[in-house]
């Protein structure tokens, strides 16, 4: 990269930009393989152990139940695509690099699911049965097992990534995004495991039907599942660890408990719903109460986490407004949520203007990305991104 000259804008704006880049870590490259980093070795151990367990688990039955397993893998691989699009859309503002997110997904699938949760869940359920009886364990065991082993297991991805990329993983919003990706890895592999187990439970007869039944149940319920729980849990963990603006440790602890409670309620839906209102209570929880409560929890976490990211992005783009390349309104919209962006587009007169406004906002985000990657300096990439904004503005 070639450094051209100092960026435009007042020294105050440039200082604020440098501060935002430093605080967010945006633009810092992510390296997984760090031989002097203990977190890398723990990650490698957990993933290798998880893959070994995974191969052992599926391997013994693949000849007998391979059709059901294959159906589950294909169906849930397809199911993953819209998830990736959705999560990628939310990985904005001071975007986390793809390699880091893949690391989170791999930990969620191999380390959290197979290395930790599978043996731990079995042990917890067995202990509950021995201590409290099988009836009690059947009613309450799952909801008092999974939120502990699985939420903690997935959140270890965040701790490892803090150790691997301390400059990159800085805000509760980073925690939310990393948690969501770790949760996605966990959820998809767990769904495949359920398809496999469902095939076995149905005696291996009609394997495609058995696996697709699992897909039908798990795909919609997954919308309020692991991705959501760990997004909330990991954002909370960032506040608890003090890795955000201000001190909000209590908020962090409450959000983590909220995510665990939400997870527990899903797993104990039958017992809770029946206790409250009989069989109708189960349906109410399943289709109404829990989806709404969980989405509210996620919405609250998002609302609390996003302002810091948006402020960083505004600071990074502010010198461009001072130099006249962007307007204040464009900076606000480019650094805002989808409602702010939509309001900005709607304020333009005419279809062509609205379309152009949309393009300029996207170009402003490209510019911010280039500035971040250049560490706040002016480079050819940054200058090209600026020229794109000028080109779009000129194309009236």
């Amino acid at each position, binding site marked *: 990269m070639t450094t051209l000259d100092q960026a435009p804008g007042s020294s105050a704006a440039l200082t604020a930009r440098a501060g935002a880049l430093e605080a967010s870590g945006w633009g810092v490259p992510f*390296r997984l393989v760090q031989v*002097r980093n203990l*977190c890398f070795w723990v990650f490698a151990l957990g993933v290798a152990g998880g893959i070994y367990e995974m191969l052992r688990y599926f391997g013994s039955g693949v000849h*007998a139940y391979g059709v059901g397993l294959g159906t589950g893998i294909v169906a849930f691989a397809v199911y993953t695509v819209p998830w990736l699009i959705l999560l990628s859309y939310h990985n904005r503002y001071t975007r986390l690099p793809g390699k880091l997110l893949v690391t989170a997904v791999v930990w969620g699938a191999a380390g959290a699911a197979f290395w930790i949760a599978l043996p*731990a869940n079995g*042990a917890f359920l067995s202990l509950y*049965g021995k201590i409290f009886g099988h009836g009690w364990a059947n009613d309450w065991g799952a909801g008092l097992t999974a939120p502990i082993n699985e939420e903690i297991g997935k959140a270890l991805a965040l701790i490892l990534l803090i*150790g691997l990329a301390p400059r990159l993983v800085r805000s509760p919003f980073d925690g939310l995004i990393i948690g969501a990706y770790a949760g996605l890895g966990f959820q998809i592999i767990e769904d495949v495991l359920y398809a496999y187990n469902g095939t076995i439970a149905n005696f291996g007869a009609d394997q495609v039907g058995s696996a697709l039944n699992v897909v039908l149940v798990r795909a919609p319920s997954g919308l309020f599942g692991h991705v959501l729980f760990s997004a909330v849990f990991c954002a909370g963990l960032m506040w608890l660890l003090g890795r955000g603006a201000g001190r909000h440790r209590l908020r962090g602890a409450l959000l983590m408990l909220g995510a665990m409670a939400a997870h527990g309620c899903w797993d104990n839906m039958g017992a809770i719903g029946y206790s409250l209102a009989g069989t109708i209570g189960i349906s109410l929880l399943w289709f109404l109460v829990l989806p709404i409560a969980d989405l509210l929890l996620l919405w609250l976490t998002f609302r609390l986490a996003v302002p810091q990211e948006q402020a960083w992005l505004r600071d990074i783009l502010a010198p461009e407004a001072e130099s006249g390349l962007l307007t204040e309104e464009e900076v606000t919209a480019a650094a805002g949520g989808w409602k702010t962006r939509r309001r900005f587009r709607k304020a333009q007169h005419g279809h062509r203007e609205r379309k152009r406004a949309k393009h300029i906002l996207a170009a402003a985000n490209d510019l911010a990305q280039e500035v971040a990657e250049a560490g706040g300096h002016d480079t050819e990439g940054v200058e090209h991104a600026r020229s794109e904004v000028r080109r779009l503005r000129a194309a009236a």
Partner: protein
Amino acid sequence: MASTYGGRHVAVDNWVPVERRWLGLDKRTLLPGLVVFAIAILLRSIIPSIDQATPVDDVIEAGDRLNLDNGLTIAPPVGWELVDGILVGADTVQPGAGSASASMVQGGVQAQIAVSSFAGDAGALLDQVNRNDSRSDSRPGFTVSAEPTAITTVGGITGAVEGYTSAAGDGLLAAFTFPDGRGMAVEVAGTSEQLAARTSQIDAMLRSVTLEVPQ
């Protein structure tokens, strides 16, 4: 990336200075790495060890019946330890709720019961289970050793039962199907001596299957 200022070396981002190393590792990464390792070992190794050290004290008594849901019950052998499954009359949130699976052990012998919907008769279910087991790596060399024979339970249900041998141990498979569209597979696994010593108990269990339509 190396940064230079006036040609003078300043820093390399991924360089760990010698005074920050311990056994070659960056000291700053020890805390997060050890925290993750300790939590993982606690959950995946220590908790299972505690479970294994905790004895099963749910011993099946005379008169106990397993509730396999929707009126299907079976009397497990007296004196065996119940590992999984719900007994009739157990204290559950939904009164009378059962479980579609159960397992019990005694002296190295393990019995597993699985119930699910199945289209076909008991012979077809037994064939299906044979197909699965002959392909499964957990029973290498699976061979049906005793041809299927019919078995009629005290509840008037006809099933099929057979013996098998494998490199991982011998066993006995039984299959029943019911008018409500469900099937039940029972597998009892152990060494041939262990199984021979419990023949009457296993036979009594298989003959105890009943299906009553819930009132």
